[in-house]
């Protein structure tokens, strides 16, 4: 009888405040305990709130932090969600403190979700040896090799676990998602969109790694996470995926700094992606911005254009 009463109370409570209850650390319904978010910080910003949460990830088997910006519109209505994937060495902090995205997100009524770039504190041997492999360098793939395969499943985390988490805990419109990112995160955004036709209503990228199987970064990461069989790498390469894409029409916006040291170091290879998209008639507008480098100053300069681009599709 007591458990029945508890269930009724829980049901009533959930009905009364559908948006609020999930902000409390203890879920009242039994199943929610695994999806619980703990708020780490909250700052009012551009009329909305920039929050950071921590949760136990089932895919990554560790605690993960994720930054969530809630625009003013979220107090009353469901909002579309813009997923941002950061680049090498970043955490969930870099984007929210340096990119200046909150103003545009507030104006267009969009929730921005920025996860971390890899699992953390897993105590895997060698995870902190390099800045471009292991910690802070998840490459948004599902690793198949030891010792990475248990934890390094960033692809599934971003495309499945995170959206579930967000849709359950926030006033998010589950039909309106879009994805973007910088550098390794740009690569992540492109592959997530190309591998999931129709899932993301818009996609864009800043200085993305367009053809990882052809550049030093990609080769190092993929051989570590996926093994030596290059066939398995192709599933995570935007240029290869574009050449065989079939699905709803995309409209990809890419900004690239012309003075980006990694562009001249042949790590990014945008020409290859452009050639593949021209061949396959995938609409891309690629802008080479003179004077800009690889830093967050570059992202700050054009983030508003990108959010406007996404808003066109998310608010349609």
């Amino acid at each position: 009888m007591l458990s029945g009463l508890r269930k009724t109370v829980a049901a009533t409570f959930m009905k009364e405040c559908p948006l609020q209850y999930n902000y409390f650390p203890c879920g009242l319904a039994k199943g929610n305990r695994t999806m619980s978010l703990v708020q780490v910080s909250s700052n009012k910003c551009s009329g909305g709130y920039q929050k950071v949460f921590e949760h136990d990830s089932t895919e990554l088997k560790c605690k993960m932090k994720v930054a969530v910006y809630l625009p003013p519109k979220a107090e009353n209505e469901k909002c579309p969600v813009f997923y941002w994937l950061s680049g090498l060495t970043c955490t969930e902090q870099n984007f929210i403190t340096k990119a200046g995205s909150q103003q545009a997100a507030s104006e267009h009524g969009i929730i921005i979700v920025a996860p971390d770039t890899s699992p953390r504190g897993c105590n895997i041997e060698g995870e902190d040896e390099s800045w471009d492999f292991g910690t802070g360098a998840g490459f948004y793939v599902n690793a198949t090799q030891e010792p990475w395969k248990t934890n390094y499943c960033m692809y599934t985390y971003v495309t499945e676990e995170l959206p579930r988490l967000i849709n359950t805990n926030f006033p998010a419109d589950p039909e309106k998602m879009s994805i973007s990112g910088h550098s390794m995160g740009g690569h992540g955004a492109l592959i997530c969109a190309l591998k999931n036709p129709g899932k993301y209503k818009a996609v864009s990228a800043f200085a993305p790694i367009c053809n990882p199987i052809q550049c030093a970064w990609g080769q190092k990461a993929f051989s570590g996470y996926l093994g030596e069989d290059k066939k398995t790498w192709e599933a995570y390469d935007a240029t290869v995926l574009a050449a065989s894409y079939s699905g709803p029409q995309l409209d990809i916006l890419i900004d690239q700094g012309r003075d980006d040291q990694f562009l001249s170091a042949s790590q990014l290879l945008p020409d290859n992606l452009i050639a593949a998209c021209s061949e396959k008639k995938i609409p891309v507008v690629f802008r080479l911005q003179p004077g800009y480098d690889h830093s967050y100053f570059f992202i700050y300069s054009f983030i508003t254009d990108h959010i406007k681009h996404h808003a066109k599709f998310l608010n349609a």
Partner: protein
Amino acid sequence: DGHDDVFEEHKESEVRGGSFLLCLQDKVNNIRTKLEEKVVEMENFAGHLEEIFLTVEENFGRQEQHLEQHCNDVLQTLSHRYDERAAALGEEKKKKLEALYTQLLGCGRTLDASKDLIETAQELYRTEDKRLFLQEKPDLTLVTPLEFDMPLADLSDVKTMMDSINIVPAPSAPVINPQVSNSATRTSLRVCWSLFSDDSVEYYELYYRPVLEDTPAVKETHCSVGELLPNVQYEFWVTATNTTGISPASEKAVYVTVPSPPVIRQRECSSCPEAALIRWESGNTNPVDSYTVELIETGTDGQSGVTESIVAVPTCESLIQLESGRQYLIYVRAVNIGGPSDRSQAFTVSTTGTVFHLLQDTAHPCLSISEDGFSMFYGDEELPLSAMTFDDNTFARCVAVLGDLIPVRGRHYWEVELDEDTEYRIGVAYEDTQRNSYLGGANTSWCMRHVLTPSRHKYEFLHSGWSPDIRITVNPVRIGLSLNYERGILSFFNVELEQHLYTFYCSFQRYVHPCFALDNPGALTVHTGVEAPGYVHLV
């Protein structure tokens, strides 16, 4: 007691020594005292000397001052005296000179008078009769005669009048009325006049220039005259006739026929969602006074609404404010004092999207424009330079043409259709952009340019000769251009994909014109009157 003696000697010597010492001491003391006194005296003396020194110094100082002052006074007084005396001397000199000069003048005159006298006397002396000069007589005759000259009076007309005093007079000139407004037509006029009271009249005859062959004799005080020319001034005058005779002609009145209707120049009209610019030809050889523009909104069911008139339009064009998303019929009438002409042919305006035409005058000779004026072709054949006629207004290098965009500061949108291999430049330019420059090369034009290289398609967005570095993967075949004066932007879209390509942020100093150019043989078609899609305004 030797001892004692010595002792006593000692004592004595001691005493003597003692008293000697005492004496010495006394003496020394005395001397010392005296010396001290002396020192004091000397000090006092020195003090006195110092005082005297100071006093002397002071006194001499004062003496010097006095002397200096006294001498200065003396000098000043002397200087004054000098000035006075010198001035007095100067005055006297002046007076004396003036007196002498006056005397000199007097002498001169006396000399002249004397000279004259001598000459007269000499002359007299030479003549025979020295008394002749006394004989000069004044003229005493009368200038005018005393009699009056009387002309004969002509009294014949008085006689005539006296004779006809009892007969009915011929009528007085009728009074011709000025033209009643709106009584005229293109080819006929109705002339009215009135009778001078008390006249008896048998009939009237109406004359006008050009002079009538058979002047109609009418009994009424009005007459309609037909077969006239439109918008021409005619002079009319009337005579009234009775048995006695014909009246003098009335004063001449000028009547004007109504003008012919104007002709709307369809190809020179443009519109946008908020307004329409209508241009027409007068339709008359002679000038008219003004024009009236009439507009009627036609509903979706074809029903017409109220006619709105804009009167007193002075020139052959009119910019009319309208509501967006409607259809209107527009007519123009020419107006003179005779009245308004008939309506011109109707012109339909639809305030959906922006409508404009290509300005044929600006087209490069190699560019041919289609019949409907919306397509342009750059043919393969090389035209020899001599066959091409250029003037100040045509593009001479860039094979380009301008469009006649309505000068309204709103949002405009049009589309361009072409092949993906066509090499073109499309955008906007100021009307005064150099005709011998390439579109996008100067700061007077903004355009999207497509270049086809052997390896790929290259897209540029040119202004002042500079373009950002942009790659586009799907070649557009239908491009939407959105111009927003308020925000100062010009955006380009791939219409089929609804894809935003690029936006210029510019502040337009004046109105711009759409511009189109073909860099190589090819063709393009302009689509106007298209409503801007929603995504266009999200930029």
